[in-house]
């Protein structure tokens, strides 16, 4: 679908801005509800995530002693801005991305990493011991999943011969789904996304039974709300990206709902099925298994491309 809308509306309402925030909340609700149902719980009501955000926004934000005030206030905003910006390059809701250029794939991924880094910095900008341990773990985890995730996303890019998300998306729609041709890449991308979002079993950075809320322990009120919102948006972007690349592209809103919904279902199941990994286990898993699998996939794709060129 290709729409022409005034850029200001794109940024503030659809598909950026408000609509994106709302979809983040809807996805958070769907994720929580699915996990709850898998765990034999009732789960939250539909408006619960919105209620949480509104409540947090209305509350006083306490800036703890020992933290840099400017950084403390700025980091949640930077995180949210990074997430919102990243959404502009991704075919959100089945609409063609409004800003697109050669190499926007890399920009998107780095914007998502910027989010994680501001999370880590937020934890480090504190004298609270839970925050510090959480920040260490957040950044350690960043260094472990980032490379395999990147390798997994590069797979379709190589096959499509482009670094532009919209082109890869279009190419994925034309050929057989990449999940068939590159199953390993799909797996690494999906699990990598879970690591990126710090979802169970990769939730060591915010393991509440050990370090309370990890990097965000000292955050309250507005800052906490913004961080949570940016994570929700990251969830939508990540799902869209993986669906666009591996599940035959996203061409219209129905595609978007079905494919991201299906992915979310699988992800919720994976979240329920395992015990939390320790941070050393997470790192070991990603470097020993994830990165190697990603590399094997890339080599296979490269070999495939050369063989095809040689034949033609």
């Amino acid at each position, binding site marked *: 679908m290709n729409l022409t809308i005034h850029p200001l509306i794109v940024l503030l309402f659809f598909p950026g801005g408000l609509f994106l925030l709302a979809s983040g909340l809807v996805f958070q609700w769907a994720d929580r509800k699915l996990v709850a149902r898998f*765990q*034999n719980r009732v789960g939250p009501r539909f408006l619960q995530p919105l209620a949480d955000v509104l409540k947090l926004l209305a509350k006083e934000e306490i800036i703890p002693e020992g933290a840099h005030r400017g950084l403390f206030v700025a980091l949640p905003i930077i995180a949210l801005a990074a997430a919102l910006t990243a959404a502009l390059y991704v075919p959100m809701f089945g609409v063609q991305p409004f800003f697109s250029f050669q190499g926007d794939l890399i920009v998107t991924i780095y914007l998502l990493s910027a989010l994680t880094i501001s999370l880590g910095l937020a934890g480090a900008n504190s*004298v609270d011991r839970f925050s*510090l341990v959480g920040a260490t773990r957040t950044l350690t985890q960043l260094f472990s999943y980032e490379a395999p995730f990147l390798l997994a996303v590069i797979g379709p890019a190589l096959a499509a011969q482009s670094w532009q998300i919209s082109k890869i998306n279009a190419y994925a729609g034309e050929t057989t789904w990449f999940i068939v041709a590159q199953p390993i890449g799909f797996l690494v991308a999906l699990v990598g996304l879970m690591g990126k979002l710090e979802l*169970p079993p990769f939730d*060591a950075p915010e393991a509440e039974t*050990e370090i309370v809320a990890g990097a965000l322990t000292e955050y309250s009120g507005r800052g906490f709300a913004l961080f949570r919102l940016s994570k929700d948006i990251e969830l939508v972007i990540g799902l869209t990206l993986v669906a666009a690349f591996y599940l035959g592209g996203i061409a219209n809103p129905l595609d978007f709902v079905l494919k991201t919904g299906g992915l979310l279902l699988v992800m919720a199941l994976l979240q329920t099925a395992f*015990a939390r990994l320790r941070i050393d286990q997470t790192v070991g898993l990603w470097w020993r298994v994830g990165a190697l699998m990603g590399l094997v996939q890339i080599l296979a794709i490269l070999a495939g491309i050369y063989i095809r060129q040689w034949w033609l």
Partner: protein
Amino acid sequence: MTLEKHGENRFVVPIGPQHPALKEPGHFEFVVDGEIVTGASVRLGYVHRGIEKGAEDRTWTQNLYLMERICGICSHIHATAFVQGVEKLAGVEAPPRARAIREIFAELERIHSHMLWLGVAAHEGGFDALFMYSWRDREVVMDMLEMLSGNRVHYSANLIGGVKYDLTPDMMDKIREGLNYLEERLAHYLDVVNNDETFIGRTRGIGTMTREQAQLLGAVGPTARASNFAYDVRVDAPYAAYAEFPVEMVVAQEGDLHARFVVRILETMESIRVLRRIFENMPESELVTRVPRRIPAGETISRVEAPRGELFYFIASGGGEKPERVKVRTPSLCNWGTVITLAVGHKLADMPMILAGIDPCFSCNDRLVMVKRNRQDPQVWTWADLRNYGIEYYR
């Protein structure tokens, strides 16, 4: 800043008294080097309730209800320990059927306690699915206890000299049905504990305690039995009806967290088996024998196997309507030493599970600690003294 505060270049991670991992207040300090714990300490006493002192102000019968309130999870076993001590002092014995019913309650309580623990321990390891499912299934045994006594937590089944509630054949059938379901579910959980890769990664080889360590540190209950220390009051000094309906002791060799999971689950299955045996040969008799209002003077100890290990009561009677002294030592108190010792060398992420591994019950083990401050004679404190001290302390 943190480092300066502690001066010795130590990085201390405090857990508790308020912390998401702890459902009851206790304070732990873990000195960490990166993720590795290099030192640990514990501070207890946040929920001291003055129960032992309170017991001296109540009659023998009133005390039954007080003792039951020491613990909300193993309430029946506290009352049983107390009642058996009092019966020993009075020189009476409960009728056979009453003793069998005491055992039935005790074993049902063990099932619910171990299933509760399974959920909590899984939650500490971030395995919330197991937590939710085991607690859902625990409702089955809670319903049984409610059917028998009308209560889910404090059943107050015991009387001095017998029990309050009888079991009808209809009730036994219902319990049997529930037990069949539970046995099936427990077999499934045992399978999960033994075969789930991520779960094994968090439990096998973690917090390993040798038999010698268990003996040295005075560990009791499933914690000790998981380290191949075969000691179970139900087997070694049978009380209630355990002589007629014996249980098999469950021990494991490994001594790690995984072994503690296995021992507790197998113990629960053993409880189900012994319950079935009792139902087959339920003795017929009265439920209560007559006990004098005044208990003859004397001192006695009473030991029972609570779900967490050996529970120890010392009871002294002056020959009146009220006890002169009741001393309670709960199993959790014996097991703290193992936590502090085993914590060193492990990762911070393992701490909640090692902590939960002994199935701690904070409120039960908080007893009076004598503080010698501004007092001439610290040995004898009256109720008024204690009350004043408490008010002054928190002012």
